[in-house]
């Protein structure tokens, strides 16, 4: 065989070996990548694509993670183990009951109305703020600061965000930030920390805060601007376990409401905090009281003895009406028209001692969604989850037009939206 042919054969063999090696390397990387993704899914990660053109390829993300490309971390978002993220960007109308995010969220609120209606929420694992369009299913990220383990988040219509997590000592830490700009700007969340806060809420306009601080011998209540400045003490109480809310609207005066922590076996009370720092009773002496007030004075409340009962009152001076469903105020929300409310109602009556067990996560309910007309004492079931689908409605919210109800599923802290109009 002459030398030329030998060289040709050798070259061909070399090329074949190189191609084979590259193919083997590719298959090896692919296998390991798949294993890494599987481990990530098991750990609660999956790959999520973002809107507004930020959709890095799957391979780029995973190799980025392997070779230390920091940007790849932003491309990974947690989801419930074994489930795919429900985020879509197809522009199609989501289903009637839409799981906005299959991973735990820390809080949510409706922003805007009409074509600009969005559901803004905070991802629990990262602390990042997202917006979902309930009409199209599109989800975009608004800011880029990574803060894991956000247990509670409150969002105001003015763009303020309160994020709460736990310190190493197990105490709550509270950070206030501002989300500005539009989607995909990657704006970092400017943060201000408030110490020793036990409860906090925004004013209806989002311009102010009201929060409670544990001071050893009781709690003190402070009002401050939304950035935490100009705080002034307006309330003090030897009672430590209060829940706070601040309601109001364009046509009604605002009201800070303090409600005692609900528990079976002990009476509860709901108070309005007056400007003088004194309390005016809205309801008191009711066993296992949970309370929900609308800006114009209508109220819903539940008692836990004997058995779970739900009541409504059109105003403080009108007679109360017992409603024909058994649920708690934590599962209810007033519609903007305030003649209607929406509640998650357990399809099986909760057992005795439900309240404390539910708050501790010991029990969960499988709810149907009901529309209430408290003035008439009427309740109508409007949605029953399909077989295999279970929702434990917690902290629902109705948008300004009364077209959607958003809520957190207490069982896994995922975010859902129910479309009310067919």
């Amino acid at each position, binding site marked *: 065989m002459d030398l030329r042919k030998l060289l040709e054969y050798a070259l061909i063999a070399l090329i074949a070996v190189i191609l084979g090696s590259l193919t083997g390397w590719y298959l090896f990387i692919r296998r390991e990548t798949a294993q890494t993704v599987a481990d990530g899914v098991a750990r609660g990660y999956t790959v999520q694509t973002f809107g507004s053109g930020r959709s890095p390829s799957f391979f780029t993300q995973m190799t980025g993670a392997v070779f230390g490309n920091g940007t790849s971390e932003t491309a990974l978002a947690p989801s419930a183990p074994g489930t795919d993220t429900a985020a879509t960007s197809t522009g199609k109308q989501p289903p009637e009951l839409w799981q906005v995010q299959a991973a735990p969220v820390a809080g949510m609120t409706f922003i805007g109305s009409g074509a600009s209606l969005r559901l803004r929420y905070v991802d629990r694992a990262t602390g990042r703020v997202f917006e979902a369009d309930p009409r199209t299913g599109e989800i975009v990220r608004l800011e880029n600061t990574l803060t894991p383990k956000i247990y509670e988040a409150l969002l105001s219509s003015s763009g303020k965000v309160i994020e709460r997590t736990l310190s190493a*000592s197990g105490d709550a830490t509270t950070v206030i930030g501002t989300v500005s700009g539009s989607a995909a700007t990657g704006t970092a969340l400017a943060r201000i920390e408030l110490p020793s806060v036990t409860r906090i809420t925004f004013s209806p306009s989002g311009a102010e805060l009201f929060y409670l601080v544990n001071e050893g011998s009781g709690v003190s209540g402070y009002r401050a601007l939304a950035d935490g400045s100009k705080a002034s003490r307006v309330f003090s109480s030897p009672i430590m376990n209060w829940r706070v809310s601040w309601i109001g609207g364009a046509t009604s005066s605002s009201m800070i409401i303090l409600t005692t922590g609900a528990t079976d076996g002990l009476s509860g009370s709901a108070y309005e905090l007056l400007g003088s720092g004194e309390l005016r*009773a809205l309801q*008191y002496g009711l066993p296992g009281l949970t309370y929900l007030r609308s800006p114009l004075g209508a109220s819903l409340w539940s008692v836990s003895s004997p058995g779970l009962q739900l009541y409504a009152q059109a105003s403080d001076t009108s007679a109360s009406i017992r409603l024909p469903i058994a649920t708690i105020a934590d599962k209810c929300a007033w519609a903007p028209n305030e003649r209607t409310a929406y509640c998650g109602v357990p399809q099986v009556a909760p057992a005795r001692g439900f309240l404390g067990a539910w708050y*501790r996560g010991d029990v969960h309910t499988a709810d149907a969604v009901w529309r209430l007309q408290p003035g008439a004492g009427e309740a109508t079931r409007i949605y029953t989850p399909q077989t295999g689908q279970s929702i434990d409605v917690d902290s629902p919210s109705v948008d300004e037009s009364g077209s959607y109800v958003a809520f957190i599923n207490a069982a896994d802290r995922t975010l859902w939206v129910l479309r009310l109009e067919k």
Partner: protein
Amino acid sequence: MLSRISLLAAVSALAAPAAALALAIPGETQLSIVATPAYPAPLSRVHLEARGVLIDLSDVELVWSMDDKVIAQGVGKSAVDITSKSAGQTTTVTVEGVTADGQTLFGSALLRPAALDLIVDADSYVPPFYRGRALPTPGSRLLLHAIPQGTVKGADLMYTWKRNGDTLAALSGRGRSTAIVEAPFLFGTDSFTVEARSDDGSYSARASATVPSTEPQLSLYQNHPLYGIMYNASLSGSAFVRESEMTFTAVPYFAPVYSIKDAALRYSWTVNDRPIAETDDDGNEITLSGTNSTGRALVGLELTHATNFFIDTTSSWNIMLSSSPANDIFRTF
């Protein structure tokens, strides 16, 4: 009428059972009106009963009036139910009749509903963001706070606190609207009452609460590396965890401590009946790995307190973890 007005005795729901005081005049026998409850709340049902000394009212035609309007009458009509007015508003109730032998009977009562709310709280441990109320356990303290309703100033009232009927003199007094006491003993139940009254008697109200003691409740949660402690889903007796390794956090609800890291708390863990060595930090946490094992862990926990021997709570969980470790050289933690 004038004589009756002069006899009109104001009853501000102060003394029970007698709810009327009057001067007897010749020819007219005084009836007493007993109100139940003796301290009626605003806009609530009040049962009124007329009583006479050595007088059988069953044969007497009685006429009841409220604010000079007849509301009920009949032979032997010795009791009537009314609805009280709003807090601070006065209702005058009278009852009158004539016996068969011509004796005139008369009684009156002045009802002024007063509202007093009694809030019961405890300083036992609950985790941040917990929406329920702390319950009293042995070693914790009960926080009792009375809030009078209406225009009355709480600081101007005299408060009398009672525990199981015994007056707590040290906690009572002017403006003493808060009482802090030791929680009831384990398995015990105590009854607390507070009475508040103004110096001029225009306000008088009472509220009470029955408070049972309880023992701390242990809940176990996944402590997820991204989500943190999953307070929304406590582990039940049997639980399956997808991961092969997970940290779990025990939360002692209502333990008589201010912090979950309180050094006085003792967490004694066992896994598959083997005791786990105590650690100085994070004693309420345990990390389990199912790698290269069956993945089944019977986890036991006993919670005790260094100085409070009433605190001794145990619980156990049967946890199944994934036993297949990831064969991944790129795996990072």
